[in-house]
């Protein structure tokens, strides 16, 4: 009997369990998946929870519901991987593997920034990248009477890199509805050159910030939070004052990766960006946020990776060369407030452009343009997530390789 072990039962891990159970003969292979929590969170919903647009029950379900029958589901903390012995050490037992899939994702590390994780954490300084943070922020926003709201990114890479900007847009809309927009001053603070990092997107979308009167502070690299005086300070000495700080702390891979000696500086696993095989060990594969590939860290990316990884694991077992086919495809809705959203679709080499999606000339979704239909798309994503994505079902009309059809491409190349 051979063992396939999957570490992490989030988006990528759950999906891979569903893919592999269909491919690996039961008489030869045992599939095991491990996670520390019994709850599976719908993380994209953490963006809506603070504004009372979603309820708690919309963003959490029992993880076991999504693990297919026949897969051994273990709820324990993973202590470390010992690649030399093909072993994974858990809290209370040790697993052997022939093939390992790492899907332990990324999480926020507020302790990396001086002054962030102090007495004011979840009082005047919030994250919305965790269920706890998002819920605490909801409670705060229900009663907040206004002042300086600063929406901030600590450093890249972060998962769902547009989420903080969406938060700023939704905040504008939220306060307008509460008829208190005039009491709130919104500033968006980023370490990057601009709010939209890709040139074409900047050109098309900058009007949104102006229209919503969101101030922008760019190239800001935070050194510390001075929570006593309500300001963030960067290494060049620039200060931004806040009454309410909504920050996205540094995102790191799990400490387990560091303990196993498998990570880079940020605990992400060096991975072949085309085949998804780890660079250090041929029988270790990586899906989702846990890898260091230069694609966006997003659920849609994990989804596009899934089918390629499934094939590559089968090829690996059969001793065939791996396909280096993953193109970095990412597809992401951007909420812009007032019931509208944008859609972007891009990959390693093609930056987001305007056009229609998925059908050229028809849509129904519009690329890089604010529409109500895109907002419906974003809300539908929750249903797709629970009912299709986690189950490893292909999404109709959207292939894992990015399509150039329907896109207005005028030689705009992605420079990152």
């Amino acid at each position, binding site marked *: 009997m051979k063992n396939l072990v999957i570490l992490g039962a989030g988006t990528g891990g759950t999906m891979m369990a569903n893919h592999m159970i269909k491919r690996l003969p039961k008489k030869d292979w045992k599939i095991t998946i491990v996670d520390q929590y019994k709850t599976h969170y719908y993380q994209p919903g953490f963006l809506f929870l603070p504004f009372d647009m979603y309820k708690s029950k919309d963003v959490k379900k029992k993880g076991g519901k999504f693990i297919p029958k026949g897969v051994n589901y273990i709820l324990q903390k993973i202590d470390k991987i010992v690649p030399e012995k093909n072993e994974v050490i858990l809290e209370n037992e040790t697993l052997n593997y022939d093939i390992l899939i790492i899907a332990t994702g990324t999480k926020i590390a507020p302790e990396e920034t001086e002054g962030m994780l102090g007495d004011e954490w979840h009082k005047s300084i919030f994250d919305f990248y965790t269920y706890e943070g998002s819920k605490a922020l909801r409670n705060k926003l229900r009663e907040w009477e206004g002042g300086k709201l600063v929406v901030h990114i600590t450093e890249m890479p972060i998962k769902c890199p547009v989420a903080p900007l969406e938060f700023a847009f939704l905040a504008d809309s939220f306060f307008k509805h509460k008829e208190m927009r005039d009491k709130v001053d919104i500033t968006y603070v980023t*370490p990057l050159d601009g709010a939209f990092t890709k040139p074409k997107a900047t050109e098309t979308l900058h009007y949104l910030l102006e229209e919503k009167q969101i101030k922008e502070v760019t190239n800001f690299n935070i050194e510390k939070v001075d929570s006593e005086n309500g300001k963030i300070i960067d290494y060049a000495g620039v200060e931004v004052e806040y009454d309410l700080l909504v920050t996205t702390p540094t995102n790191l891979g799990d400490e387990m990766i560091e303990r196993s000696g498998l990570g880079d500086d940020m605990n992400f696993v060096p991975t072949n960006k085309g085949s998804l095989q780890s660079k250090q060990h041929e029988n270790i594969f990586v899906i989702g946020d846990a890898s260091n590939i230069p694609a966006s860290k997003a659920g849609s990316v994990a989804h596009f990776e899934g089918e390629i990884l499934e094939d590559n694991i089968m090829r690996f077992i059969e001793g065939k060369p791996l396909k280096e086919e993953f193109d970095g495809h990412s597809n992401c809705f951007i909420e812009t407030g007032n019931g509208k959203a944008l859609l972007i679709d891009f990959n390693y080499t093609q930056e987001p452009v305007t056009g229609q999606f998925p059908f050229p000339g028809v849509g129904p979704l519009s690329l890089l343009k604010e529409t109500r239909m895109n907002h419906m798309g974003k809300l539908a994503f929750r249903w797709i997530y629970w009912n299709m994505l986690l189950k490893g079902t292909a999404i109709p009309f959207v292939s894992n390789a990015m399509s150039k059809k329907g896109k207005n491409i005028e030689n705009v190349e992605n420079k990152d």
Partner: protein
Amino acid sequence: MEEVIANKSIKVNEEGYLTDFAQWDKSIGLEIATKKGIEMTDRHWEVVDYLQDKHKKEEALSIRGIKKSGIFNVKEFYGLFPGGPLKVSTMIAGIPKPKSCI
């Protein structure tokens, strides 16, 4: 795009970053630094070595990485390359401008 740097024809992008690291040598780094108003010291070159080493290993540059490197700290980095330290130092080192742009 081609640009003449230190009497050599070098491939660069619109922002002035080298597009072919193989073309880099110290004289090129020195000329870019001079244009940026930076007087290179041994300490500056140590930073350049660190950045190039990361680039060769295909490892992303990050603040956390700099903190962990033990070679220099972020404050000193700002002192050596005022303005946008990573932006300026990567240009001098002949490697691409990193995503997180300090």
